[in-house]
């Protein structure tokens, strides 16, 4: 196994592109190192992106925030601007692992590991985040986060590509987001179900925009269009929230496994969607 720590994005993508065998990008390594240890992957090349200048920066852009691919969870959690704009995204990232894991784990690693249960992915999708993908020929393209992880362990990245940063857009007034997950313990666990909601209210408290995304109930994070429809135009009264719960449960496509049964995940998907919407609307109200 060859380990490289290039100093430019172009070098990194070049190395990845020219590798004949399996190549892996190394961000925080909290997924990759575990996989290496257990013999799950035996890559020929590991490209550490943490030495590339700017990779660990969070910069303001167009009223939103651009988060570098090597920004660890702990740094994101200490960034006032991002915390104010996207508390739901930050709480999702901060749920990953423990204090030790937070010092390393990145949002981009969470995305590119492509686990259906990844905590930050539903929250990023609900926030309308874009992934900036860098290619070997110096190209860059921006794609919705939801188009990056397309199945368990599978991404849409072409050979030689990597995710350079995540863009979290500007938040309209009276907006709020939230993420909740169900785990049997309080930390160090994988979501049995996750639910993210991002929404905007008008001055009367009526919902004018909403996104509802579920995690761990399908092969990839699931956008619940009907869920958004259930709360749009409402004040998130009990009836609207009950409708959201119903459609979120119905939309879930879970499997039975050691972490939960189909009926359990289905029911909890609805419960968490409803609770997340409630928190998001409270946060939106507080920002008026």
């Amino acid at each position, binding site marked *: 196994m060859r380990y490289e720590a290039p100093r430019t994005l172009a070098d990194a993508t070049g190395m990845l592109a020219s590798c004949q065998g399996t190549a892996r990008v190394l961000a925080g390594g909290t997924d990759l190192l575990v996989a290496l240890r*257990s013999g799950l992957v035996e890559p020929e090349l590991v490209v550490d992106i943490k030495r590339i200048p700017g990779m660990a920066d969070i910069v303001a852009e167009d009223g939103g925030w651009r988060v570098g691919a090597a920004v660890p969870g702990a740094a994101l959690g200490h960034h006032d601007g991002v915390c104010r704009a996207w508390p739901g995204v930050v709480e999702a990232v901060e749920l990953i692992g*423990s204090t030790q894991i937070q010092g390393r784990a990145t949002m981009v690693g969470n995305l590119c590991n492509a686990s259906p249960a990844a905590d930050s992915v539903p929250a990023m999708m609900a926030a309308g985040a874009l992934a900036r993908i860098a290619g070997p020929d110096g190209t860059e393209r921006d794609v919705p986060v939801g188009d990056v992880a397309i199945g368990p362990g599978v991404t849409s990245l072409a050979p030689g590509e990597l995710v350079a940063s995540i863009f979290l857009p500007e938040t309209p007034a009276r907006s709020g987001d939230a993420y909740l997950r169900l785990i*049997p*313990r309080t930390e160090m666990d994988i979501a049995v179900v996750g639910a993210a909601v991002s929404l905007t209210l008008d001055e009367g408290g009526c919902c004018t925009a909403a996104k509802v995304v579920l995690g761990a109930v399908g092969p990839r994070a699931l956008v619940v269009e009907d869920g958004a429809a259930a709360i749009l135009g409402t004040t998130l009264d009990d009836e609207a929230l009950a409708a959201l719960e119903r459609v979120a449960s119905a939309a879930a496509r879970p499997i039975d496994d050691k972490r939960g049964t189909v009926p359990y995940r289905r029911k909890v998907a609805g*419960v968490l969607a409803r609770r997340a919407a409630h928190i998001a609307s409270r946060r939106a109200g507080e920002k008026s």
Partner: protein
Amino acid sequence: MELEFTTRTTFDKVGTRPPRPDGTDKVTGRALYGADLAGADMLVGKVLRSPHAHARILAIDTSRAEALTGVKAVVTRDDFPHIGPEGTVKGEVEESVWDVARNVMARDKALYEGHAVAAVAATSTAVARQALKLIDITWQVLPHVTDVDEAMRSDAPLVHEDMITAGMDPVPEEPSNIAEYRKVEMGDIEAGFAAADVIAEQSFRTEAAHQGYIEPHACVASASEDGLAELWCCTQGHFSVRDMCANILGMDLASLRVTSSEIGGGFGGKTTVFLEPVALLLSRKSGRPVKMTMSRDEVFRASGPTSSTSITARIGATRDGRITACDATLRYQGGAFPGSPVGIGAVCGMAPYDCPNVVLHCYDVVVNRPKAAAYRAPGAPMAAFAIESLLDDIARKLDIDPVELRLKNAVKEGSSSVYGPTFGPIGFEECLETARDHPSLEAVPGPNQARGIAAGFWPNFGGQTSVTVNVNTDGTVLVSLGTPDIGGSRASMCLMAAEELQIPYERVKAIIADTSALGHNDTTGGSRVTHSAGLATIEASRKVIDIMKRRAAATWDIDVDAVVWDQGCVRPSGANAGDHEPLTFDAIAAMASATGGPIAGHAEINAEGAGASFAVHVCDLEVDPETGRVTILRYLAVQDAGKAIHPDYVEGQYQGGVTQGIGWALNEEYIYGSDGVLQNPGFLDYRIPVASDLPMIDTVIVEVPNPGHPYGVRGVGETPIVPPLAAVANAVSRAIGRRMTETPMSPPRILAAIDGTS
């Protein structure tokens, strides 16, 4: 010679909380654990394990592995001497040597997924791993069974084709997976139920739980050409490791020296051998030291968890809450070999209660799972889960406070116990009263919250123990123990020696000596060490005092009867004895050479008089009615310690037992696929509690002295894991209004109970 004593009640040093002697090295990372030793030219040993739950091994071809550069030895079943079930046993061995030998290396069949089938020693981990892939095994996969109830059916696949149930009358003609049946009986069960006004009856199931020690099994073996060998390993009992390895490998006990490393948790799971005989064999074959360590995955798949169980129980009581009868059928699987703790577990369940009519049917069952090992109060938590749940149902039916119900039926001094002996002084009533009056019970449970109460019992063990107390010429003291320190016992021994010798705690140090330095010591287990090694330490210290008295008397040229030991000095017993300045401990130590040579006390005992320890636990929790998730709000553990030598470590035992019990109650389980393969061999999906899952666990140490120990000590390590399954179940059941009868009470299972779909 038995030590004669009256139990004392006032102390100078015992009961204080000085820092533990092993603490600094542990927190700085300097302490040497099982994997921390290295020898010259040491090789890495790795085990090839069965991917099948049950399969006949038709052939093993190791030639490709042996040909790999860097491979120095490969061992399989063919390298082990034949023992057979009939073989004679030397030393002190509590398990069947034949079963353990077949567990450390499969013979004709692999009996569970993870069963060792071959091992290699190589110059690096990478080479060893590569070599494992080059071992060719021809399998004949057989049908398997992992569930205890299914294994008892007459059409179940047989784990051992020739196993006839022991203890049945008449002797069954057909083999089965039931290794043994045992019946425990007391009184007249029919009359007992006839006298009952209410009866509670349920079936219960508990899934297997692993001890979850953080340090995986590890050892370094070095066998030399002259037939001698040394072994360094992480164990609760290096003497039994020596005896077991010597039996499996056909060695003399004197030819094998075993040193126990520091131990990162054991909880009963490190009372047997797994890697050790294999490492010795690899070392013998390669002529080089061999280190072996299990991965976490191997720990789960191949070392012993406790039994999963299926229990049906029935308890009857009169209208005023007197228990009149209990009958129960308990089925425990012991993994692929006989020896589940069903017998002792069964009696522990009812031991706290004065019930005249009891029948317990105990079934020891084999399945295609790893050989069960001891786990803290082996067998008792499951039986207590059933009994304490039923008592809660009776309390509700009769509308009696659950503590009062238990007080009405609590055993006390003079009560006869279902496990045999008549109780001496015990502290169960004191524990119940202490729990009842504890301020934490003033908290009133809110919506979706409830309180669960349960009691627990463990008889505690004594056993063979050998201790040496050496006095140095500067007046410091070294205590050599043969019982690995898994819970702070070195600190307790230092306190007891310091108390006896009336010298400062800081002047006493304790070590765990190897198997060649002391007489036999039984394993650290059964909550026996503070009691038995304490007894031996006290006896050895008193011998030191006797020697010191003789030395002083000789110095003064008076009779030894004319001197007394008083406040750390020898002084003349009275005016008639002469006018001599008292000689201090340090002064006598300093003149050892001139007065007859080194001063040391020994004790070699087979300790008796271990006093039973009872506990009462109170658990307050909240259930999220929409997700089934449980949050533990408050937890109180009250337990009789007899005398807490070092209260910090007694409280630590209570809290640790509770923590493990809560994990077992809520989330821990062995999950098998339909292929018999374990699906969660890691801490991600085998969910032991993390720190943030639990509140601070309140403890109260009750002290009803045990007359079987000079200071009144009772073992405390095991009882605290007995009540939590039932305490949690009783709280959850009250919170949701339905009786929970199965562990783990994971969120999906609780939600199914709430929704009525379970």
